[in-house]
């Protein structure tokens, strides 16, 4: 009886840890976007790390990312990054609504189509944030700089996709198996 209970508890705990891992991955990506990486000199394109994670989980595990979690993630990033408070929260929420609307289409697509979707997502996000900053600073952003950021951010996705897909498959496996 006790052994059975312990086994059930172990299974439940293992399942809980597996799902907590999704948030841990996003936390890690968020921190990674704030660490200086001098070797690659990718500087400002690091926002792509978080967007890549968010984009992937919103397609494959949307139930794990209700609106309030995205809001908290965005706000935490705003406060950690000393930018305009609420900007990431607003842009991530908007992005999440669009991705959730398109996820049925994206789920059936090969990975390069999903990558193309990511390029669209990061482009929209960067342009939106640039426009907000252009309005607040009364100054147009450098288009080459913006294009460079979008390009570098887009190039990250193929590195993250297989790793996140592995974890997604691991989540689908039951610990009992």
């Amino acid at each position, binding site marked *: 009886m006790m052994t059975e209970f312990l086994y059930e508890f172990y299974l439940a705990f293992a399942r809980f840890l597996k799902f907590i891992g999704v948030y841990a991955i996003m936390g890690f990506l968020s921190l990674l976007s704030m660490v*200086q990486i001098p070797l690659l000199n990718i500087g400002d394109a690091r926002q792509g790390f978080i967007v890549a994670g968010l984009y992937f989980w919103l397609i494959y595990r949307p139930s794990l990312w209700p609106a309030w979690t995205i809001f908290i993630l965005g706000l935490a990033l705003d406060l950690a990054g000393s930018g305009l408070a609420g900007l990431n929260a607003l842009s991530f929420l908007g992005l999440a609504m669009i991705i959730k609307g398109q996820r049925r289409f994206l789920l059936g697509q090969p990975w390069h189509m999903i990558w193309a979707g990511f390029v669209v997502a990061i482009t929209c996000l960067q342009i939106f944030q640039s426009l907000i900053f252009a309005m607040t600073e009364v100054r147009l952003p450098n288009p080459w700089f913006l294009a460079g950021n979008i390009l570098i951010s887009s190039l990250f996705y193929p590195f993250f996709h297989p790793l996140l897909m592995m974890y997604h498959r691991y989540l689908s496996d039951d610990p009992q198996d």
Partner: protein
Amino acid sequence: MIGEGKNHYSRRTVSSPTGRRNMREAAIGAKIGQYFPYALLAAACVILLVSLLHPMKWKQARIEVAEQISPALSTLSLPIRTFESWGEELSLLTNIRAENARLRAENDQLKEWYQTALLLRAENQSLKDLLNVLPEAEQTYITSRVVGDSGSSYVKTLLIQAGTENGVEEGQAVMGRHGMIGRIIEAGPRASRVLLLSDINSHIPVIIEGVNQRAILMGNNDDRLTLNHYAPDALIKKGGRVVTSGIGGMFPAGLPIGEIVSIKNGAVNVRMLSDPEGEDYVQIVERPIDQKVKESLESLKFPPPSISNTEASGAATALPSPSISSDPAHPPSKSPAQ
């Protein structure tokens, strides 16, 4: 079969009053769930507006968040730094002969400069003595590691692992390897944020060496800075060094910042001497305090141990509590030991 069972179950729940209540609650829940993301969008808009109108509103929250994430960022940056140092060592090993020759030549040059500097220092000192110039307060620094940055294209900040517990204060100048890179804008107990000179919100008073022309150095969210508010007839030349003017008392005068690299249609561009993006460690310039003021502050912080508790309490009742007053008519009271 499974489908039929489900239909039967749903029909049964709808027909009972409890089931109907459940259905109604579920419908309300679904409706709330449907509009909840829009409510959050509206909340984000409100936060954004508040942040635009009152940028200091989130300062405390930012300090708290920086305080919490700085240890994690420090740990995460450790392997990156290790890889970086390996790469540097590898490139050094491959170029060791050329590097050695370059350093020898540089050393010879520096020895000459050292002799010149000694002569100039002696001359400078004798001239100061002749003019009876008041000695400047000694400059002290706090060295700290950089643990992270804003991670955004539109905000140029650094997060450092030193705070008020280490003597860091808001407004202090921050130096890189070769020159000033920014100033402290938020100081928590163990972590602080540096606004880089390249940030669009950075405006500092500077002076162009040689021509002694005052100006304001502004950031562009770019690696080049712009000089503004200088006299139209100023003789600004390419290669001129830009240093802090010390006007306003915010920073000490003479901190090197950069050099003028181009002058096009009246726009003067300055390249920073230190690349803030590549700095692992920074030095925070402590505000110079007069030695006498420092001593009196120290004595106020730590009461002399010779006074016993009863004596101290008696003194406290007899004398007003020690305070620093800026009013010359009411000078700060001295402790009994003084």
